[in-house]
């Protein structure tokens, strides 16, 4: 029972992490049909910005609780600034080009942004442990857990519910769904598609930044942390179905829970879980578990 609870919590915690980092990727893909490789850069920039200011504020003697504000602010600032620069400065001029070229452009941007991090923040890792230390830890199921890690589950739920409400209960959701289903139809309905694109990209970027900013207090924020995230979030999106939020949620849960189970019961296979799930889905349902509907084009 103890083990079961621990596996469940570990799994949910890891799933939450996966969901937060992959939600932005799948939203951008769903609406804009762009596989945004520099999503990893949003994550890294979010983590660096948060860690940098949490450290600075702490040095200045300000209360550690401000850390949570910084995390949110870092995600928004990174998302808006980077998202706006990249979408308006680069991607906007490419929408008439091949989608794959856009992927390549985001890959180029990823490389550039990686090195700009090095130049801006240096190679020394940053530590922003204050928010995690503030929330201390509790014992659950015979295991001490940091409360901060558990709040991740809350953040993920918040993001998931927020996305659902946005898509299903607002006028914006109707517009988004129209554009997701068929861009041309959206244009013919009089939707300002370029504007929708800009907002979507910023929204996705904020989620990417949030992933990094929220994780920052638990890790050593060091160069290169964006590369790993792309692989993981991509795996989630492929399993769930590219462009589907529900898919990303289910994909995260499957991978997260299975991985936790493996770590506890059979650590030797832990490493294969993500890729085994991915391989099985690719063989039986190459479009993913929740592939969004596509319009007929003839």
């Amino acid at each position, binding site marked *: 029972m103890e083990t079961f609870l621990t596996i469940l919590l570990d799994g949910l915690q*890891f799933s939450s992490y996966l969901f937060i980092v992959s939600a932005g990727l799948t939203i951008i893909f769903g609406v804009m049909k762009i596989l945004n490789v520099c999503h990893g850069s949003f994550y890294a920039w979010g983590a660096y910005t948060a860690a940098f200011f949490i450290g600075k504020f702490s040095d200045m003697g300000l209360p550690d609780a401000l850390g949570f504000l910084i995390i949110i602010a870092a995600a928004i600032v990174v998302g808006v600034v980077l998202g706006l620069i990249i979408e308006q400065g680069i991607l906007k001029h490419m929408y008439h080009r091949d989608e794959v070229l856009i992927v390549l452009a985001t890959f180029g941007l990823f490389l550039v942004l990686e090195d700009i991090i090095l130049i801006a923040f*240096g190679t020394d*890792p940053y530590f922003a442990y204050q928010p995690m230390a503030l929330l201390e830890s509790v014992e659950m199921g*015979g295991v001490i857990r*940091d409360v*901060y890690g558990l709040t991740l589950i809350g953040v993920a739920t918040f993001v998931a519910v927020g996305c659902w409400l946005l898509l299903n209960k607002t006028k914006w959701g109707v517009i988004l769904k129209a554009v997701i289903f068929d861009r041309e139809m959206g244009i013919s309905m009089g939707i300002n598609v370029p504007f929708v694109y800009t907002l979507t990209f910023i929204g996705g970027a904020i989620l990417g930044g949030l992933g990094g900013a929220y994780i920052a207090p638990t*890790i*050593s924020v060091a160069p290169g942390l964006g590369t790993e995230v792309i692989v993981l979030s991509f795996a989630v999106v492929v399993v769930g179905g590219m462009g589907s939020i529900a898919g990303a949620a289910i994909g995260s849960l499957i991978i997260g829970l299975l991985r*936790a189970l493996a770590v506890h019961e059979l650590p030797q296979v832990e490493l294969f879980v993500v890729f085994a799930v991915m391989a099985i889905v690719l063989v039986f349902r190459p479009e993913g578990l929740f592939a969004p509907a596509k319009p007929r084009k003839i």
Partner: protein
Amino acid sequence: MTKSIIAGAVGLAAISAITFGAGVAQAKDSITIAVPSFLTGGAAGPFGIPAMNGAKMVADAINKGALPAPYNTKGFGGAVASIIELDEGGGGTKQVAEYRNLVEKRNVDAVVGYISSGNCQALAPVVEELKQFTIFATCGTPRIFEEAPRKYLFRTMGHATADNVAAAMYVKEKFPNLSSYTGINQNYAWGQDSWRDFDLTMKQIMPGATASDKFQFPKVFVGQYGSEISALSLDKAELVHSSFWGGDLESFIFQSSARGLFKNKIGVMTVGGTAAYRLGKKLPNGLIIGARGPYGILVKDRDTPLNKWFIETYKNIYGIYPSGPAYQYGQAILAAKIAYDKAGSDATDEQLADALRGITFESFSTTIEMSLGGGHQAVTENGYGVTKYDDENGENVVTDVKFYPGSCVMPPEGVESVQWINGGMKGAKC
């Protein structure tokens, strides 16, 4: 930030100057030494940069003749060395390609460096193929000199077997009644070799302690260990062994100390030394840490003139105490000087190799005997200590430091590490 841009620009200019100058310098009043280290990626901050700093500091002092005796002669066999900084990131294959460029295009005189065991493993045959005098500074896999005899390749520090045999011995001394142990190591050669050597040694010297069957092998550079820490917490084992290093090590220490893992369990971190200066109060007390030999925090109080010079100069330039990698790169550069001094600045690669083969020399913190692998692999002492936060000075110290002589923790010439441990470590002189 402006500073780093300026520094970058100056570095760029310097490197281009070196590059264009390299071809012309035939008279051998100057030599070029390529120093590869992690300049990008997660390993740069805790490992790559201190390593590079150590190398540059020592090379600079040698050029000026500023090292303490007996190394106070100017230059490398009289020649001034310029350092080419190289990034070690990108994987073994990329490093092989870069190494070929270094030797065949940029015509460097010596290559001194490398941190990753994977890179060293990939480069060893290429070093021999290109017949280039090369010193590996930090990488740990014992296989390099056990697989094949090397002629141009040297390593001036002990290998992973020493780290883990010494760790097991230290554990036996401190916790003779230990009943069980487990581990968390990265899933590649370094982590696998480390765990294997520790596990096998424990079976030999502490047969009463059993290994858990749920030891963890997460992927390198993942940085998230939530589930693993839970699993380790639930594991009944009393001790956790880890060879984590760099960013992974620091992330793991954060996450595990927030969850009180080391309140109930003994932690053994074979590369923990690099974190001691950097993490300050965030490092839990009572961790058993090593520094892959007598380096960094373990030798902070060694009072030899060479060690005092090293610590003081490093602290003056970089503002912090030198950690293990700084020592390891520094002593590898020192070894190059010794070889050049002996063979002359215009020596061939062969002559340089002859000069270094099998010698014994005093490095900054310890005595290095090039006595394994046909005189190419160093044997040094290896030690461990227990962390303690010193509130008075606001820094971490280690207590109960104990060193084991090299002949005690490394196999004798001609015996492979695993066989040696499994055979009951015959010939160990402790």
